[in-house]
């Protein structure tokens, strides 16, 4: 897994789909492929409130990415320095093995080039010390660019607060 993690604060997320558009504009994507998705689940009645869940689905940049193993040309790669999984477009032959392999439906198909494309955590921005587009511009500051350790700490603190306040 990459050393980074996008933490989605469910309490702040309002399911506004801005992250999808931030991503599409940053990556100049055609209509069709989406590197990240907000999937709405619900509403489900929870204690008299019709609760909606908005599940953020970017690439998880797995430790052992199915897509990298499946790629026959070496186009799909994992960056050594930080584990970001990305595609070298010049090597992609459009065989769609990665699309078949990924259990989460992450790699997308780009009709115009006939190649697979995917979320690379906006690595050009990361290399400049910035954050991915989806995080930088999240409407409600619900997405956070933090390490897994920080995410764990954050969740524990929040849970502790909930327990303390009953």
């Amino acid at each position, binding site marked *: 897994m990459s050393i980074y993690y996008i933490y989605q604060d469910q309490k*702040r997320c*309002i399911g506004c*789909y801005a992250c999808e*558009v931030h991503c599409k504009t940053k990556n100049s994507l055609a209509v069709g492929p989406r590197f990240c998705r907000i999937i709405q689940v619900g509403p489900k009645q929870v204690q008299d*409130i019709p609760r909606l869940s908005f599940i953020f689905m970017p690439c998880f940049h797995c430790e052992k990415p199915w897509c990298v193993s499946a790629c026959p040309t070496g186009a799909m790669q994992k960056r050594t320095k930080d584990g970001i999984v990305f595609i070298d477009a010049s090597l992609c032959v459009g065989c769609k093995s990665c699309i078949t392999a990924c259990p989460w439906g992450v790699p997308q198909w780009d009709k115009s080039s006939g190649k697979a494309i995917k979320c690379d955590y906006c690595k050009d921005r990361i290399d400049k010390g910035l954050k991915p587009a989806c995080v930088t*511009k999240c*409407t409600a500051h619900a997405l956070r660019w933090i390490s897994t350790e920080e995410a764990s700490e954050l969740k524990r603190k929040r849970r502790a607060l909930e327990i303390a306040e009953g």
Partner: protein
Amino acid sequence: MCGMCAVRCPIRVETEKDVVAWIEGNPFVPGIEGALCAKGSAGISFEYDDERPQYPMIRDGARGSGQWRKAAWDEALEYISNKLNSIRERYGSKSIALADRGGPFTDLTKSFLKAIGSPNYFDHDDSCAKNVNMACQSLFGYGRGEVGYDFSNAKYIVLFGRNIFESLQVKEVNNVLDGMEKGAKLIYVDVRATVTASKSDKFLTIRPGTDYAMLLALAHVIVKERLFDAEYVASYISGMEELEAFVSQYTPEWAEKETGVPAHEIYAVAREAAAAKPNVIFHGGWMLSRYIDSFYASRMLYILNALLGSVESKGGLILAKGPKDAGMKGLRSLGADMPDVGDRIVDSLMENKSLGTGHMVNLYKAIRTGEPYPVKAFIAYRFDPVAAFPDPDEQKKVLDNLELLVAIDVNFSETAWYADIILPEATYLERSNIIATQKGPKPGFIMRRQSVKPRYDSKPAWEIFTLLAERMGAGRYFPYKSIEEIWNYQLGPTGVKAADFDVKGFVSLVKDPIMMPRDDVKFKTESGKIELLSPKLHKAGFTSFAPYATPRKPAEGCFRLVFGRTAVHAHAQSQNNPYLNEIISENTLWLNSGEAIKLGIKDGDKVEICADGYTGIIKAHVTPFIHPEAVFMLHGFGNEIPLKTRSFGKGLRDTKFQKGSLETVDPVGGGVAYLECMVSVKKT
């Protein structure tokens, strides 16, 4: 400043070789800090979309026929000024009207009208917040735009149909979420479960059209149980005894029968809100052009704040401060040195009218009847009444009385499509605007500056109105050759320089928010107090306390047609945007599950909606989370302009079903009563 919707959030734009490469929320603005909504980000796909007006277009067929010829700017301006001058000769300058969507830049349009001698400036507010604005003024003497909300410090927030997380302003969303993180409770009352309902601590489904009943009952409990802020009430409120007498009949038990909201919930909200006083917000309403009693509903929302002492309190409602309150001079109006207009705005002379003037509905009336005097030319500037107001077909009939209909817009709006001429305005990324004042706890000025050159043959508004003024013999009042000249003129008395905007895009006039001392709050009413008994209302022939009247119940198989917003689209203007259309391309009809069973309709079925002979087919979204008397659709779909290929013919337009409702308004506030429309629904 963003231009994708009328909120105009502050943005920062990066360009590469005169191409917009990146848009983000202004990082210097607290509560924004980079944040931008989907519409804002889709500004790039709007900019690089070809399906927008690219050059001036003059009608070359019947109105609405879609037959156009391309014109050069000179020809287009000549065409307009010749017609306007001819109309002016025959009917006077007052027969020329202009309407826009209000907002921070109206000094330009108002000054243009002043320069050509017309009093007839209108805005979109009859279709939006007019009732709220009037209600707010009748109590505080401040307009609703001058009464902000301190959500991040509130402890108890009550929203009646204010779908704050979908009909969104970025900063406001963050302030509410910050408040909730700090423990604020969010109470949401609506006819359907929105995203806001989903995020709330308490969601109460209410029968459509009965908000006022529940509000009366809340006031009843607060008064009867003496839960109000006695000191605040004694200092700042006039008419308390009359209020007490008036609300005594409206018990929660009575309201339960009207609203369907259990009486114990009404008691709970009243008591919990009172326990949190004064850090309480009852939102006064946003788009509250809904029912014929929305003015009084909004007024009661504001009264509840007043009773709990939350007006001009931290965590409550904050009165706006301007440059004067910061000890500074304001911007100089472009019209400052122009002679006053002698004629009066057309609706000031109308009988039996609602409060105030400048009602778009009244402009339509004047165009239709020629009374009290004829209005023969109408300029719709970045404003689309045909899409926004009820019954587009009826509107078009009225507009046929005009000798000239001009649309100035960045979009092919429904109004533009029916116009005689379309002038393409440069987009918000391609133009600079006049400097705007930002009123609020921290008053200041804000600048929209051009990011890239216009892609097409379009012009910024300041230039369009300058050129028109010139051609109408008013050039001496609009002597500007560049936006910089205008900025310098505006900033003249303030001591602020145009360069001061370079880094942040705005200039704050104070470091810390300005609050009036708790023991010395001044209201802009006659008495200086919050006037529950309003002389202003009485003078206009209205009562301060209107008795509740129960709304009509829809017949079997019929429903009240409710509409609303999603976070993804702005009114009727964004449905064709490639990226936004990708997310939501078509609307559906929300229908209550129980009603659906009676009608034999299943989720996803195609259903036929009908009102007064107008029918449309739409997919049903069957859900238990809408009141059985209501059906709901998103506003803004059902585009009829073929040039907008992605959204053409997709979904239905709510306003088409509001047959004959163009002049159905709240009689006091003047806001259109859109939700008085009933439709029948059946399976196809």
